[in-house]
Each structure stands twice: as C-alpha cells, then as structure tokens.
C-alpha cells in the first residue's frame, strides 16, 4: 500500500501550524481592538464541567454542550486567568513561530519569565485546557506535548517537518525498540506504508514480544505501545494511520474494566477531552482480552477488587457501554467476577498469544 492519502498528509503539519496561528492572531486582534475602544475584553470558553458534557451519537464521543463561561478582564476574579490565557496564546504563537515544542511542565515554568507566574502546575495545565477548549484544538497543535512514553514500530515511512530534519525520511521498522511518538513524529508526514493494519497494545512487554515474533511481517501490522491509557499524541497518531492511510485499528488490552476502557478511549475519546475532536478512531476494534476470553482460554485470573466493581458500575452508566461487545463484556466481568492480564497467555508458552490467540481474535473482529 503506497502513498495512500499522501496529498492529504503533505499539508498537515504546516496547515496545522497556520490554522492555530490564525486563531491566535484573531484572538489577539479582538482583545487589542477592545482595549483601544475602552471596552473590557473577555474570552468565551465552552464550559467543561460534567453537566455540560453530552454524548454525541453521530460523532460517537462525548462533546461539550451549549453552556459556556466568560472570562472577563473586568472581573477581579477573572483577570488573572484571563491574563494567563492571553499569555499562553502569546507563548504558543512564539513556539509555533520558532518551531519549538514544550511540555506542560515547561509551560508552567516559562510563565515566570513573563511575570505571570502560575501558583502550581495544575493551574497552568488548566489554562492550557482552556485554550484547547476555546479553539477546539488539542494542545499538540499548540506544540505542547506530554512526556512521551508510547512507541510505534512497523513499515511506515515518515518525513520530518521539524526544524533541522525537514525532508529527512525514516522507516519506522528500522529500530526494534520502536520509536517514541513524540513531537517530531506527531508532526511528520506519513509518506508510505506496506502495512494493512494497526495493532495497539496496552503494554510495552507485549509490544516487544510482537516485534520479536515479527507480528509486523506475519500480519502486515504497525504495532503501537499505548503504555496504558494512550496519550493524546498517540491517539492522534492512531487516528491519522486510520484516516490518512486507511488502516484498520485493533486494540489489545488487559482483560479487565480498565483495559476495556483504554480501548473505548481510543475509539471514542475521553470525557477529559470532550472539548476536542479528531482524537478518536470510531472504527477501531477492541479484540481482547475479553471477559469471555478468560473463560474460553482458561486464563489464569484473579478476583475483581472493590475498586474494579466500582469502576464497572460507573462504566455501565456510560451511554457508550450500552450496546455491542462493550456491554456484553462488562456483563461477563460482572458475572465471572475475575480479571486477567495479557501476560496470562504465557501459561501456554511465550508465543501462544501471537500464534494462537491473535489470529483467532483478528478473525473474530470481522464480525464485530
């Protein structure tokens, strides 16, 4: 499979930058104009409270409702977060202009250089989320990245857009430990691939096993380690592989409610990111470990804890878990009251999960 969607991806990195810079400039101009006119400027941001979150059946993810908050520079209680938001816009603009990236922690410290100290990192993280909500853009678009920990491996060629590497290409099957899904990978163009699917696994150990067992060859797969709940850049990468390269996405997690929810977040997003779009892979398939797999494969298992039960009942109330495999497996967990890890397949030998389980599950996924 070659050059699929290349036209689309070519412009992605630069268009993303232009898009954000345009929004930032408009925000700056509107505040500038108001100040000159003697009007106290304000910023309207969608309200991010749980009460303003609704499940969108079409988008298949949580979105924010109509309610919004107004940060007014006139209000003594708002002036500080208002200033922070304006500063952040300014700071992001500078990052984009200079092709630099930063982390949440960087942002927290950077503010001190401009006399707009945050009292702690949660305060600065919150302002970043405000800016995301204001523009409905993930912070990765602002060049603000989480600490990377998730990785990718497989036959896909990328072309860097980050300064100093522009035009340089790399095949992501070149290094057996995989590549960190960091800022440079996130902004890279996807040039070509021979892969036919993406398999996202929850754990680094299994990721390494998959590489060793040449899952990428056997199944023509790109393997992604989500390292638990996948960071947004990883979800964004999954989305791009799915949309730009047209690859189906399969998700393998531990056999418990938390694993099921990792898959759900990849498919339909998290409540924390209800203000954002483009982070979901609605066609993604959770292929295990299901509750019913624990029974079927007689996997070593341990009883659910009180904590697991609590989470289970929470998820049952979530509209996304009302039907299909999601609901069915929640009920199985509730019935068998046990959970298993991916590693439990080692009971049948180290390669059993690749040789036996994976093909069966991929087959089963067709009917999902």
């Amino acid at each position, binding site marked *: 499979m070659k050059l699929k969607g290349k036209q689309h991806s070519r412009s992605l990195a630069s268009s993303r930058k232009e898009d954000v810079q345009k929004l930032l400039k408009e925000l*700056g101009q509107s505040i500038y104009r108001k100040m*000159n006119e003697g009007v106290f400027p304000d910023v309207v941001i969608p309200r991010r409270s749980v009460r303003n979150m609704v499940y969108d059946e079409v988008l298949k993810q949580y979105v924010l409702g109509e309610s919004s908050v107004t940060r007014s520079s006139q209000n003594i209680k708002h*002036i500080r977060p208002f*200033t922070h938001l304006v500063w952040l*816009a*300014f700071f992001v603009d500078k990052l984009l202009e200079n092709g630099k990236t930063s982390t949440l922690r960087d942002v927290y410290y950077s503010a001190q250089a*401009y006399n707009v100290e945050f009292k702690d990192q949660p305060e600065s993280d919150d302002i970043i989320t405000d800016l995301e909500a204001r523009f409905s853009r993930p912070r990765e678009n602002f060049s603000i990245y989480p600490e990377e920990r998730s990785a990718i491996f497989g036959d896909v060629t990328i072309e860097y857009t980050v300064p100093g590497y522009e035009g340089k290409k790399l095949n992501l099957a070149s290094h057996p430990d995989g590549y960190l899904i960091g800022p440079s990978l996130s902004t890279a163009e996807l040039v070509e691939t021979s892969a036919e699917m993406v398999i996202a696994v929850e754990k680094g150990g299994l990721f390494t096993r998959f590489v060793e067992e040449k899952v990428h060859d056997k199944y023509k797969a790109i393997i992604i380690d989500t390292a638990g709940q996948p960071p947004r850049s990883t979800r964004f990468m999954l989305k791009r592989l799915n949309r730009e390269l047209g690859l189906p996405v399969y998700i393998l997690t531990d056999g418990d409610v938390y694993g099921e929810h990792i898959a759900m977040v990849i498919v339909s997003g998290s409540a924390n990111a209800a203000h954002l779009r483009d982070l979901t892979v609605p066609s993604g398939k959770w292929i295990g470990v299901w509750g019913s797999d624990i029974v079927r494969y007689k996997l070593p298992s341990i009883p659910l804890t009180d904590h697991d039960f609590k989470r289970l009942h929470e998820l049952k109330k979530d509209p996304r878990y009302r039907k299909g495999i999601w609901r069915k497996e929640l009920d199985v967990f509730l019935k068998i009251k046990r959970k298993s890890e991916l590693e439990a397949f080692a009971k049948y030998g180290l390669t059993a999960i690749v040789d036996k389980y994976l093909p069966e599950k991929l087959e089963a996924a067709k009917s999902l």
Partner: protein
Amino acid sequence: MGVLPEVFVRITPMDPDKGRPDPKPYILKVQDNGPGVDPKYVPQAFGRVFFGSKFKLKQARGMFGMGGTMSILYGQITTNRPVKVVSATGEGKAYKFEMRIDIRNNTPVIMSKETIPAEGVTGTSIELALQGDFFRASSKIQEYFKQTAVVTPYANIVLIDALGRQFFYERATNAMPAPPKVTKPHPYGTDVEALRRLLQDAKEDTLSKFMCKNFHRLGDNITRRFLEFAGLKEELNPKSLTNRQIVSLVDALHRYDGFLKPDASCLSPLGKEILEAGIKKELQPEFVATSIRPPSAYSGFPFVVEVSVAYGGKVLPSGITLYRFANRIPLLYDEGSDISWKVVGQDIDWKHYNVRPEAPVGIITHVCSTKIPYKTVGKEYLADRPELERELKNAVRDALRRLKIYLSRKGSIAMVQRKMGIYEKYFPLIARFVTDLADEKELPNYQGLLRKKGEVVEKEKVEVVPSVVKKKEKVSEAERQTTFEEFG
C-alpha cells in the same frame, strides 16, 4: 484659667559611690510652679500627718492628703535626714525650711528657716532623702511618668533619674480641664464619723436647716420627707443628737430612696480633646476614639468614666494594652484584679469590632470620682461596682464602634489599593501580549480601562461605609436606653 504646670523631679543617689548596691539612700527632689504654700502653713502641711481637711468633697488625687507627708516620714525613718521645703508665693522671695516630724507628737520640728530671693517665680520645692531600690523600681518610675504625661498633656514634666538620664514630657496643649467645684457630701456617701464632724461644726439651730445646709442637693421638701422617714423632728437641735440618733440618722440616710442623684460639678474629667492630646503625644497611634460617659453615681458618689481606644502607630505593642487612670493617677499594679481588666478581657467581644488579637490596641480608662472605689488601701485597682462596670463597658464599646468604622474604612481603602494593584499589574501584561499576537506596533490604550476600573472600585468602597454606620446607630440607641433608665 489656671497656671500651666511645670513639674521637675530628680532622683540622685546620696552616696557618690555608684557601685553600692540597692537598696540605698537617694535624694528625691520635686518642684512645681504652683502658687506656693503660704509660709505659715508650711510646717503644718509638710511636718504633720493628717493636716488639711478633705471632708468637703471634690475630685482630688488623694483622699486624706497623706501621700506627701507619708513620703517625708518614710524618708526620715529610713535615712534620718530632714526634709527641705522651699516655697515661693510670688512676693519676690522664697522661704526655705529644713524640718523634721516629731513622730511621737505628730508635730513639725523646724531646724532652720531662711528667706532667699526669688524674683518673679512661684512654686514649691521639696527635697527629701529616702531609702530606695532604684534598680528595681526604675521601669515602674518611667512608666508612671509616661502614663502621667498621657493624662496631663498640659504639663511640662522633667524627670532626671538616678542614672542621670533625662526624660522630658513636653506640653502638647494649653487647654486644662475645668477645676472641680467643692461639693457637699451626698446622703448616701455619709458615714457616722463624717456626720459627727458636720454636727460638731453645725451653726444651724434646727435639724431641718442643718440638713439643707450641709448635704448635697437637699431642699426643704426632700428634707421634710426624709426626716419624717427617719422619724426625727425637724426642730431638733443638731448638736443635741445622741450617739444612737446619729447612727440611726446615718442608717436612714443610706436607706431613703427619695434623694436626688449627685451632680458632677465636683468632678474634673479631662474631656475628649485633652485626653486625646495626651494619647497622641505619648502613644502616637494612627487612630484614637474617645467616649465620655455622662455622670453616674454609686453609693452617693458621683463619677464620670472616660475611655479612649488607641490603635496602631509605633508605640503600642501588639495585642491589647490597658492603661488605667483614677483621678488622673496611673494605676500600674494589680491590673488583673481591676474592673477595667474584666470589662476589656471578658465583657467585650473583640471579634465583633473586627479587632484581631494581635492588633496593636491601647485601651485608656479614666475614672473620676469624689471617691474612687479602690478595693484595697494600696489604691491600685478599682472594685467591680456594677454601676462602674456598666459605664466602662458602654464607654469601651462606644469607642470600639468608632474603631470598627475606622478599620473597615481603612480595610476598604486597602481593598481598593489591592484591587487596583491587581489591575495595574495585569493590564499592561495583557496589552503587551496582545500587541505581539495582533502584530501591532503600539500598545493598546489600556490606561482608559484602568481609569474606568478605578471609578468603579472607588464606588464599591463608598458603599461599604454607610451600612456600618447604620448598624452602629442602632446599637447606640439601645445603649442610650439603658443610660436613660439609670437616670430616670
């Protein structure tokens, strides 16, 4: 208009050897610029204990005039030295006496008397030697002078202490409180001994005339009704009363409830201006409020309570400091037993007045009376008379209400400054960031916004104050009610 006082006090060690440990003899010299003492009274006034008459009632520093002669006596007992008295009455010369007290006979013994020139001066100077422990008393002596200066801001006072240190308490006002008028005793405050003395000197031929003439606020009608109540005939000769009759008359004087309350012309309160002048001078507070209560009475003795509340400044320490005065005398000892301490420590809810525990607050209480209700002969603290407690409490509360308003005003000014400080910090930053974002060259005009904000914040401040004042008036009304009932 009296003479503005100039007081000079010096304490000198008698022995030039400074190393000698206390207690040791000191020479105390006290001099004033008063009218002087007529030389013919000097020996009696300074050489005899219990000279003078104090059964005519008016506010005075002492009760029986013992303080001066007792000091002289104490000096004589401890050092065996004579006292030197110089008195200038303004006739161009002064009379200098050296004398002792003949203790057995309570009479003065003049050892020498001479006349010295003293052109254009009046006053009295006393120099005596006495045993003392200056090292231990030093801080109390200073405190006494400092506090005295608080209630006598119309006096110049100089103290040179035993270490040669000079303290000058400078006059801060030329206003002096009106001197008290001598008043006749009130029936409620009369005891058997006082009545016997009055009867001895009686010139009236009937009891009814005697009562009218010798007691405070007794007219014909009240006298008639009282004597009827007491079961004594109006025509009785005052001198003919038997011991039993005298005792029963005093008893009746105390029991009869038809007498008028004593009036306060015999008192000499300082008044707001003088008291505050003294407080400002010595305590240098940033705020002071004074409450002068209307005259009241206990057991036939009139009294007036004056209270000031001082706040802030550099002199007052953190927390509440109580300064107690009785007839302009500072009370330095046994604070914890004093009625003022009870009022300040127990009766007042400080939180209600928004006074934080660590706030530098001075409470100055001044009680004036013809008879201060000291609890002990040491005259260091006032007894908890309910009438006195009530007046002190009302006065302290009244002054504190004004402090509360001041604090809330100050708080609201601070609030305005704090608020504006926040806007002044953030607007320039916003302006700078958006100028960059919008690709503009000049900063937007945020000054206009700051001005607008300033006006709004200022308005918010003004709104705070009236509500506080309103509340204050409501409470005052209730307080006024109690005062009214008391005098009804």
